[in-house]
C-alpha cells in the first residue's frame, strides 16, 4: 500500500500520498485501492480460465502420458497406442515451412526496413503484409488447395501443406524481423557508411548480426502457429491415418501425405469412436507442451542474446 504512485519513481516518506491524512485524501486512497482491485480482478478473470483449462488437460491426460506414448504408433483402430507418426509429421511440416518462410521473410523485412523509400508503393507493401497476416486460416487452405495441390500439381502432399503453412507464417516473420532491424540504432549504419561501406555490406556486417536475437525469436515463435493450425493442412496434405513404423525418424517423403498432431487431435475428437478417454487429452498436452517448450526456448534465447549485446 505504500508503493510509489508510479512504478519506478522513488519512494517518499509519506508513501507517495501527501494528503492521506485528510478525509479527502483517505477517500482518494480508497479509490486507488478500488481501482487497483478492479483491474486486478479483470486480469485474474482472464488468467483463471487458462490455469483451469491447462490443469484440467494435464490431469485428464496423465494416465496416458509417457515416452512410450510418444514413440508408439496408433493401434487398435487408433483407440490406443501412441502418436509417433503425427508427432514426426508435425515436425516435418514445421521445419520445412519455416525453412521456406524464414529466408524470404527476413530478406523482405530487410528490403522494407533498409532499402525502401517512403513511397506509396512501399506503403502498399506494408499494407499487404498486414493483410496477409490477417487472412483466415481457411482462406489459406483454399489458396493452398487451388495453387499448390491443383495448379502446381503437387497433389496432396507434405510439400503442398508446408508451402501453405509457409505463406501463413511469412507476414509475422516479416513484421518481427522489421522490428528487430529497426531496433538497431541509425548511428551504427551511419558509422559504416562513413567509412565507405555499401548498403549491403552494412547490413551484412552490422545490422543483421545485431538483430539476430529478434529475428531468431520471431522465427521460433512461429513454430507454435505452424504446429497448431489444422485447416491449412487438412485440405492440402494431412491424412487421418498412414502406417509408419514405431520410432522411424524419416518416415515421409515430400510427395507423401502425412499425419500431424493438430489433425490427429481433430480426428480423435470428431471421427474415432471408443477412444480411451485419456488419449485425446494426452495428444493435446503433447501438442501444447511442445509448443510451449519451443516458445520458452525462444524467449530464453532472446534473453541470452540480449545479455550478450554490447549496446
Amino acid at each position, binding site marked *: 500500500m505504500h508503493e510509489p504512485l508510479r512504478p519506478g519513481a522513488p519512494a517518499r516518506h509519506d508513501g507517495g500520498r501527501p494528503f492521506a491524512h485528510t478525509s479527502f485524501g483517505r477517500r482518494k486512497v480508497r479509490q486507488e485501492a478500488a481501482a487497483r482491485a478492479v483491474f486486478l480482478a479483470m*486480469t485474474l478473470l482472464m488468467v483463471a480460465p487458462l490455469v483451469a483449462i491447462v490443469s484440467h488437460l494435464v490431469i485428464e491426460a496423465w494416465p496416458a502420458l509417457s515416452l512410450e506414448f510418444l514413440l508408439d504408433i496408433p493401434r487398435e483402430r487408433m483407440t490406443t497406442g501412441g502418436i509417433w507418426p503425427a508427432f514426426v509429421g508435425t515436425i516435418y511440416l514445421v521445419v520445412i515451412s519455416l525453412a521456406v518462410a524464414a529466408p524470404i521473410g527476413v*530478406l523482405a523485412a530487410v528490403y*522494407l526496413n533498409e532499402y525502401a523509400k517512403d513511397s506509396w508503393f512501399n506503403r502498399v507493401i506494408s499494407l499487404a503484409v498486414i493483410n496477409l497476416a490477417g487472412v483466415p486460416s481457411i482462406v489459406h*487452405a*483454399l489458396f493452398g488447395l487451388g495453387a499448390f495441390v491443383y495448379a502446381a500439381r503437387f497433389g496432396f502432399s507434405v510439400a503442398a501443406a508446408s508451402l501453405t503453412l509457409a505463406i501463413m507464417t511469412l507476414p509475422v516473420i516479416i513484421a518481427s524481423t522489421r522490428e528487430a532491424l529497426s531496433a538497431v540504432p541509425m548511428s551504427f549504419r551511419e558509422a559504416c557508411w562513413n567509412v565507405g561501406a555499401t548498403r*549491403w555490406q552494412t547490413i551484412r556486417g552490422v545490422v543483421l548480426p545485431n538483430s539476430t536475437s529478434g529475428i531468431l525469436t520471431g522465427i521460433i515463435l512461429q513454430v507454435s502457429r505452424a504446429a497448431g*493450425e489444422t485447416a491449412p493442412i487438412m485440405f492440402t496434405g494431412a491424412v487421418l491415418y498412414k502406417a509408419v513404423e514405431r520410432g522411424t525418424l524419416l518416415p515421409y517423403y515430400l510427395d507423401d501425405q502425412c499425419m500431424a498432431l493438430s489433425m490427429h487431435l481433430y480426428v480423435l475428437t470428431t471421427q474415432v469412436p471408443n477412444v480411451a478417454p485419456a488419449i485425446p487429452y494426452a495428444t493435446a498436452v503433447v501438442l501444447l507442451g511442445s509448443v510451449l517448450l519451443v516458445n520458452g526456448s525462444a524467449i530464453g534465447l532472446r534473453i541470452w542474446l540480449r545479455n550478450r549485446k554490447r549496446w
Partner: protein
Amino acid sequence: MTPPGTTRSGARPGRPFVSLAAERAMEAAIRLSGISAIVFVLAIFFFIFREAAPVLFSDEFKPLEFLFSVQWYPTSVVDIRYGTLALTAGTVGVTLVAMLLAVPFGLGAAIFVSEFCGRRLRETLKIVIEILAAIPSVVWGFVALTVISRLMVSYTSAPVGVNMLNGGIVLALMSVPIIVSIGEDALKAVPDSYREAALAMGATRWQLVVRVLLPAARNGLLAAVLLGVGRAVGETMAVLMATGHAVQIPHGLLDSVRTLTANIAAELGEAPAGSAHYRVLFLTGIQLFILTFVVNLAADLAIRGVRRK
C-alpha cells in the same frame, strides 16, 4: 537510408568483381523478397477469385439471394439454394460475443499490466499471456467440445452445449492476448509527461487512466481491438467445434450458429472440384477475405494515426 557517396550499383574503384556481382545478386534477392508479400496477397485473391468467378458471373447467380437469404441448401436434389445471411449472422454474432467478453477484460488487463503492477508480477503476467497466445486453435476447439460444452449444459438452460456463447467464450480467450499485448504497447507509448502532469494536479490513478491515458492511447487501443476482431473473424477450427454448426439466425446467446469459416471447412472437402457448390464456397471465401481486409485496413489506419502523433 542511402549511404553517402555510393553509385547506384555500389561500384567502387578497387572493388573485386566477384564481390560486386554477389552483392548485386543479394540485393536482387532482397528486392524480390520485398515484393513477395504483395505477390502472395494478390495470388491468394487471384486464386480464390478464379475458382469463384464462373459462378459469380453466371446468369443464374442472384447476388441478393446470396447475401440476404437464410436458406443454405447447396446439395439439395429438389431446390438448390445458396443463401449466406445465416452464416454471416453467425460470424458477426460470435465475434460480437467474443469482443464483449474480450475487450473489457483485455483492456483491463492491459491497464493493470501497464500501470498498476510491479516488475515481477508484470513478467509473470506477460508469460501467462504468451502461453495463452500459444495455445493452438484445435486445442481450443477440443476444450470447447469437452469442457465448456459440459459446463454449459449443467449450469445454464442451454439445450445444447455447443452454441454461440461457447464459441464466443473460446474466441474471447483466443483474442485476449492480442488485445493485451498491443494495448499495453499503446499505453506505454503515451509519454510520461502526461502521467506526471496528471499526478501533479492530484489525480488518482483511476482518474489518470480514465481521463488521461485512455483518450491519449485511443488510436492504439482501437487498433488492438480491431486486430482482436480480425483474429476472431478469421478463426476456423475452434468455432467449427464450438458453435454447433447450425444454419440459423441466432435469437439468443444459447442458440447454435454456423460461421462462414466453419462452413467452408466443413463442406469444402466434400464438394467435387469444379462444381457449383465448390465455387460458391470459394465465393464465401471472398466474402471472408473482404471482411478481414476491411478490418485490417481500419487497424492499420488506426496505428498510422498513432505514429503520426
